[in-house]
C-alpha cells in the first residue's frame, strides 16, 4: 500500500520539478546560458500567491470560493512573473548578448542574489505560511486504492499536466513555436530567415517565467509555506532534472524531473530518508556516465 502512496508523492514532486526545470531548459536551448535568476522568479511567484491568498482570507470571502481564489492566485503569479522574467532578460541579459559567454552568467547570478536578498530583507528571512487547508477543502481528497491524494497534490499534478500538454503543442505546432525551435538551432540563420530573434527570446522568458509563477504558487500550496530561499533550494533539483533529461530539450526536462523525483521518493521510502539526496545524485552521476548529454539530449555537433 505504501508503494501507491509513494508513487503519488513522486508524481507531485516530479510535477513541481518539471514546471521549474522547463524554464532552465528552454532558456538554455535558445541562449545557451543558465538563467540562475529563474529560481527567484519561481520564489516570487510563490510570494505573489501568498499575498493574494492573505488578502482574500482577510476579506473573509475565502471559505465560499476556493474555485475563484486559486485561479486568481495563479493568474496574478503568472502576470507578475512573466513581467519580471521579461524585464530581467531585457535589463540584465540582452545588453550582454554579444559579450563573452560567462558575462550573462555572472549577470544572472547577480540578479538571483539581488532578488533573494531583497525578498529576504522584506520578509525578515522568515517563511510565510500558505493556508492550504483554508484554500482547499480537505474533503476534496481523492482516494485511489490505498493512496490518498489531498486536493493540493492532485491540483499540482493536474495543472502541471495541462501546462505541459499545452506547451508541447505550442512549441511543436504553432508559428512562434517553430520560430523558437529555429532560433534554438541556429540563431543567426533564424535571423536571416526573418525571425525577430529578440522577440523570440523575450517570448521564451515570458513562457518560462509564467510556468515558474504557476510552479511557485503550487509549491506554496503543497509545502504549506514559502520562503526567500525556496527558489535556490528547488533550483538545484530542477537544474539537475534539466541536465538529467538533456539540457535544452523540453521533453527531456520533464522526463528528468520525474526520474529525479522518483529516485528521491522511493530512495527515502525503501532505503532511508537520510540518504534521499545521495541516492538521487548518485543516480544522476551514473546516468551521465553512460549518457553524457542527458537522456534525450543531442550530442553536440563537433565544430572545427
Amino acid at each position, binding site marked *: 500500500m505504501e508503494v501507491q502512496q509513494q508513487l503519488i508523492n513522486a508524481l507531485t514532486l516530479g510535477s513541481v520539478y518539471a514546471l521549474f526545470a522547463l524554464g532552465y531548459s528552454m532558456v538554455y536551448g535558445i541562449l545557451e546560458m543558465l538563467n540562475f535568476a529563474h529560481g527567484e522568479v519561481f520564489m516570487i511567484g510563490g510570494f505573489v500567491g501568498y499575498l493574494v491568498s492573505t488578502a482574500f482570507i482577510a476579506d473573509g470571502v475565502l471559505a465560499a470560493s476556493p474555485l475563484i481564489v486559486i485561479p486568481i492566485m495563479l493568474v496574478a503569479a503568472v502576470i507578475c512573473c512573466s513581467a519580471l522574467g521579461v524585464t530581467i532578460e531585457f535589463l540584465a541579459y540582452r545588453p550582454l548578448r554579444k559579450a563573452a559567454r560567462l558575462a550573462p*552568467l555572472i549577470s544572472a547570478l547577480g540578479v538571483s*542574489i539581488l532578488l533573494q536578498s531583497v525578498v529576504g530583507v522584506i520578509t*525578515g528571512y*522568515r517563511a510565510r*505560511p500558505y493556508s492550504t487547508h483554508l484554500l482547499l477543502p480537505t474533503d476534496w481528497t481523492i482516494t485511489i486504492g490505498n493512496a490518498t491524494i*489531498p486536493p493540493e497534490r492532485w491540483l499540482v499534478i493536474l495543472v502541471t499536466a495541462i501546462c505541459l500538454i499545452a506547451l508541447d503543442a505550442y512549441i511543436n505546432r504553432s508559428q512562434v513555436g517553430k520560430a523558437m525551435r529555429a532560433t534554438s538551432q541556429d540563431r543567426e540563420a533564424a535571423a536571416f530567415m526573418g525571425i525577430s530573434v529578440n522577440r523570440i527570446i523575450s517570448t521564451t522568458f515570458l513562457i518560462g517565467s509564467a510556468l515558474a509563477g504557476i510552479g511557485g504558487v503550487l509549491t506554496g500550496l503543497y509545502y*504549506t509555506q514559502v*520562503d526567500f530561499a525556496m527558489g535556490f533550494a528547488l533550483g538545484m533539483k530542477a537544474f539537475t532534472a534539466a541536465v538529467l533529461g538533456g539540457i535544452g530539450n523540453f521533453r527531456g526536462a520533464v522526463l528528468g524531473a520525474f526520474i529525479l523525483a522518483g529516485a528521491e521518493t522511493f530512495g527515502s521510502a525503501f532505503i*532511508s*530518508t537520510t540518504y534521499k539526496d545521495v541516492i538521487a545524485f548518485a543516480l544522476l552521476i551514473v546516468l551521465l556516465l553512460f549518457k553524457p548529454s542527458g537522456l534525450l539530449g543531442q550530442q553536440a555537433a563537433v565544430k572545427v
Partner: protein
Amino acid sequence: VKLARNAILVALVLSLVLALGLVAGCGGDEATTTTAGGTDTTAAEQTSATGSTGEKVELKVGAAGPFTGQLAKIGTDALQAIRMAVEDFNASGAMPDVTFTVVEADDGADPAKAATVAEKLASDDAVIGVIGPMTSSAVKSSLPIYEEGMVPMVSQSATNDELSESGYSVFHRICPKDGVQGPSIAKFMIEDLGVQSAFLIDDKGTYSQGLADQVEKALKEGGVTNIQRESITPEDKDFSAVLTKVKAMNPDILFAPIPSPAQGAALEKQMLSMGFDVPAHAADGAKDPTEFIANAGGATEGTYLTSLGPLPESVPAAQDFLERYTAKYKETSLFTAQSYEATMVLLEAVKKTGVDDGKVDREAVNAALAGTDYTGIMGFPISFTAEGDLAAGGIYIIQVKGSEFVPVKAIELD
C-alpha cells in the same frame, strides 16, 4: 574541442553555484557592534591608560545566536531580551562606573559561522562574556575557541549532553540537558499518554539527533519497543515520503524534535492534508505562537511540547518583564525569558568580580559564574553544577490549546 570546453563551462558553473550558496547562506553574519566597534576599543584603551578618572568604562556582552535563517525568530527574540537585560542592568545603577553594550554575533545556527564569530568575540578584550550560542551544534564548534580565550558563556538553550561533559570550564547553561529532558519526555509519554508505539523524526542536527536518541533509549527502557525512526534535513519542505511511513505505522505518538517552529508546523500541516492526525510531541524549540500556532491554522492543535523552564506567563516574577517585552515586540518565543535571565546571571557575576583599571578579568568572571546563586524572572534559584549544568529547575510539558500554549505537567529533576 567543444566537449572539453563544455566540461570547463560546467565546472565553472558548478563553482559559481557553490559560491552563490555561500553568499545566500550568509546574509550579514559579521559580528556587529551596537555602537561603532573601532571607537569602543579606543575608549576602553583610553580609560585604562588614564586610570579611573570618573569616566565610564564600556564593556560588551556578546550575544551569539541565529539572528537570520530558519531560526531567526527565536534568535531575534533572544537578542532583544538580551538588549533589554543590559539596558535594565545599566539603569539599575548596580555598576555605576560601567556601561554595558551588546555585540551581536549572528551564527545563523551554522557551526562554521559560529566558530568565526566566536573568534571575533574572543579577540575583543572589552567582551566580558557571551550569552549563547543558542543551538547545540553552534556551541560545539565554538566552545574550544571561547575556552581558549577564557570567555565565560551562558547558553539559554543548548541542551546537548556532550557540551557539558567535554570538560570545558567556560560553558554554562540555564536549561536542563537532553540527558534529563529525554527521559522526562519518555516518562510522560509512557505514564501519562500510555503510548505503546512511537515514530521519531530528527533533523540530523546535534540537538535533534541527541534528543531523539535519548527519548528512544528511555522509551525502550520503559518497555516501548515498537519504534520507528527517520531523519529529515533543516532544508526539507516536502515531508510526504516520511509522512507516508508515519501513516502506515499509525503510531501512538509522533516525536519530532525539530528546532524550527515553521518547519515543525509545516510537517503537521502536511500530515493533516494527507488525511491523518496522530498525537505529536514537538520539542522545546517549537514554542512560537505565530509560527507554530497561528501559521499552522489548527494543524498543531493538541501537540505536546517541552518547555525547559516554567512558562514565564505562570511565574509572578516574570510579569513585569513580559509586559515590557510584549509592549515593545508584541510576543515572546521560547527562549526569550531565558535569554534575559542568562544575561542577568552573567552581569551579576561581572558585578561580583568588579572592574579593575577599566578591565575585567574573564577568568574571575568565570569563577564567579560557577558560584552563581541567583533568583530572577524564572522563579527558581539558578546555580550551576561543576560541569556548568543547571543544578535545579525541571522539565515542563505544555500543549497547544486554541491560540496559546498551556501547562500540562511539571516533571521535577531528581
